[in-house]
Each structure stands twice: as structure tokens, then as C-alpha cells.
């Protein structure tokens, strides 16, 4: 009997096992897989530039064989603007953490949307600042304990940011969605979102944005199983999955 490969290492993944640093059960590499696979399916690998300013996502820079950039925290959005404006024929994906996009990068985020910048931003939402030790992020859920909300997030610290809903109100935005990979079905749906977002860039419509709810077992002090459950039972109810904007023209 012949064997045919159904799924394995993403094609665009460069082998650096020594440098694959994500914690066991971390879903960062899951969204990376989705992105790499869609890039592959769209055949744009050769003209892709990946930009990552999400902290725990720096593995992306290490594991891709595509052109890549690793600017500082909070700068991946503006940096992507600079790259895309100079290389309009290139395919630009910028990864940000939730702290990255919803906190320090929020001004860049809103204005990239307002200027209708023609690239795709992926926000990996693990509900806190993982890299720096698990502090509150704007996305942190009510009641969630972090190192800067030791008693849990209360209303005095505000409410969880809903970035796709917010940016969907901005005219320059062509696509906005929230996905997760808590189930295989949601994995596949998220992949569809990512593909649509990329297509908006290829069609030069406007800014495209996908938020990804990402389990962070280490930062949450949970087993991987508990972390997936948390995504399902806590995050998704507060931050519902789905598409919030999908237009083919901005006028």
C-alpha cells in the first residue's frame, strides 16, 4: 500500500528544533501553522514578509524560511505599514500579541485601519502579557488573576478589549474576525478566516485583521487540557468567535 502525507510539519517551517521554545501545549505554533499553510496554499511564500512583535511569538522569526522582521513590542503594526508602503507587491503579515495590539499598539492599530493600510494583522490573544511574566492585558477576562491583578480583574481595571468588534467600525477595514483552535472545527474555521483576510490583502481592499484566542498553559498556570477548557469556557463566551466585517470595497 502506498502512503500519502496528509499533515505534518508545515511546509514553510524551517527546522530549528533547538530554538523551538514554546511551552508544551502553547497554541502560538498553531496559529503559525494556519498562517504558513494559507500562505502556501495562496502560493505567495516568495514575496511574503512576516513581521512579529508579539513577545511569545518570536519563534515565528526563528522558524520561518521567509523574510522576517522582529521589531520591538508594540511596533509591528507601524513597521508593517512601512514595509507594505515601500513594497506594495509583497505580501505582509504582522503578528501581534494582545498586549502588543490592544495596549501599546492600540493607536497604531486604529490608525492603520483608518488609513486602510493594505496588509494583514494577526493578534494572538492569550489574555495577558505572557513574555514578561503574566501581567494584565486589556484583553484579560473579568476575574482573571494575573501578576498585576492578583485578586482577579475587577471593574476598576476596566473590561476586556474586543478588538475585532471595535476595528470593524472603522471604514478602512476590509475584514475582521475572531478565531480559536479549541476544537478541530474551530481550527478549520479560523483557517478560513485567515484565508479571507489574506485574500483582502491580495485584492488590495483594505486592512484585514484576525484575532486568535490562544491557550497559554504556562502563563495561566494550568495543564494544557485545563488551558483549552479555559479558552472554551471562559474566553469564547466573553469574546465570541466569528466574522465582524467582510467587505469587498470600502466605500
Amino acid at each position: 500500500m502506498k502512503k500519502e502525507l496528509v499533515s505534518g510539519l508545515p511546509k514553510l517551517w524551517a527546522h530549528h528544533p533547538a530554538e523551538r521554545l514554546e511551552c508544551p501545549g502553547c497554541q502560538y505554533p498553531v496559529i503559525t501553522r494556519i498562517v504558513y499553510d494559507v500562505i502556501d496554499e495562496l502560493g505567495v511564500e516568495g514575496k511574503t514578509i512576516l513581521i512579529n512583535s508579539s513577545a511569545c511569538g518570536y519563534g515565528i522569526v526563528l522558524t520561518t524560511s521567509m523574510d522576517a522582521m522582529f521589531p520591538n513590542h508594540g511596533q509591528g503594526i507601524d513597521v508593517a505599514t512601512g514595509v507594505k508602503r515601500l513594497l506594495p507587491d509583497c505580501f505582509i503579515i504582522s503578528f501581534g500579541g494582545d498586549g502588543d495590539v490592544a495596549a501599546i499598539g492600540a493607536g497604531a492599530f486604529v490608525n492603520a485601519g483608518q488609513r486602510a493600510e493594505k496588509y494583514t494583522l494577526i493578534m494572538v490573544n492569550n489574555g495577558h502579557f505572557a513574555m514578561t511574566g503574566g501581567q494584565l492585558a486589556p484583553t484579560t477576562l473579568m476575574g482573571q488573576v494575573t501578576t498585576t491583578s492578583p485578586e482577579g480583574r475587577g471593574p476598576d481595571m476596566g473590561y476586556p478589549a474586543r478588538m475585532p468588534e471595535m476595528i470593524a467600525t472603522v471604514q478602512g477595514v476590509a475584514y475582521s474576525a475572531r478565531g480559536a483552535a479549541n476544537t478541530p472545527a474551530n481550527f478549520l474555521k479560523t483557517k478560513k478566516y485567515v484565508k479571507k483576510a489574506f485574500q483582502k490583502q491580495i485584492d488590495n481592499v483594505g486592512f484585514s485583521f484576525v484575532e486568535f484566542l490562544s491557550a497559554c498553559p504556562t502563563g495561566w498556570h494550568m495543564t494544557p487540557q485545563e488551558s483549552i477548557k479555559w479558552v472554551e469556557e471562559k474566553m469564547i463566551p466573553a469574546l465570541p468567535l466569528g466574522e465582524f466585517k467582510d467587505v469587498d470595497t470600502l466605500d
Partner: protein
Amino acid sequence: MAKGEIVIDEMYCRGCGYCVDFCPKDCVAIQEDKFTPQGYPLSSFVRPEDCTACGICSFMCPHHAIEVYRYVEE
């Protein structure tokens, strides 16, 4: 009957157990006594006979440790 098989790379596996959780056919399990060279629990393909080669264990694996093969008639 098995429609395919999977190969788990012990260099990559970090023992998170997602493959176990998500395999619809319960073909994968973490065996208490098996460890990767880096000391993580290692998952194993324990019930190959039911594998449908659906690919789920592979794409849900954060560490890209699983290859799924489908048997094709020649």
C-alpha cells in the same frame, strides 16, 4: 480497518496531550513510562487499527510532532 497511520517525532513532542484529546478515534495516548529525550512525556500511536488519517492530531499538535499518512490503493 486502519485508513492510515501516524508518526510521532520524539524530538518535537512535548507531551501536551492534545493529540490524545482531539483524536476522534482515540488512537493516541500518553504512556506514563515513555519520555522524549528532553524529558517530556511522549505520546504514542496506541490504536492504529482505528485511525482514519483525518489529520486532526497533526494539525492540533502545537509542536508539529505528528505526521499523518493516508493509505492509498495502488
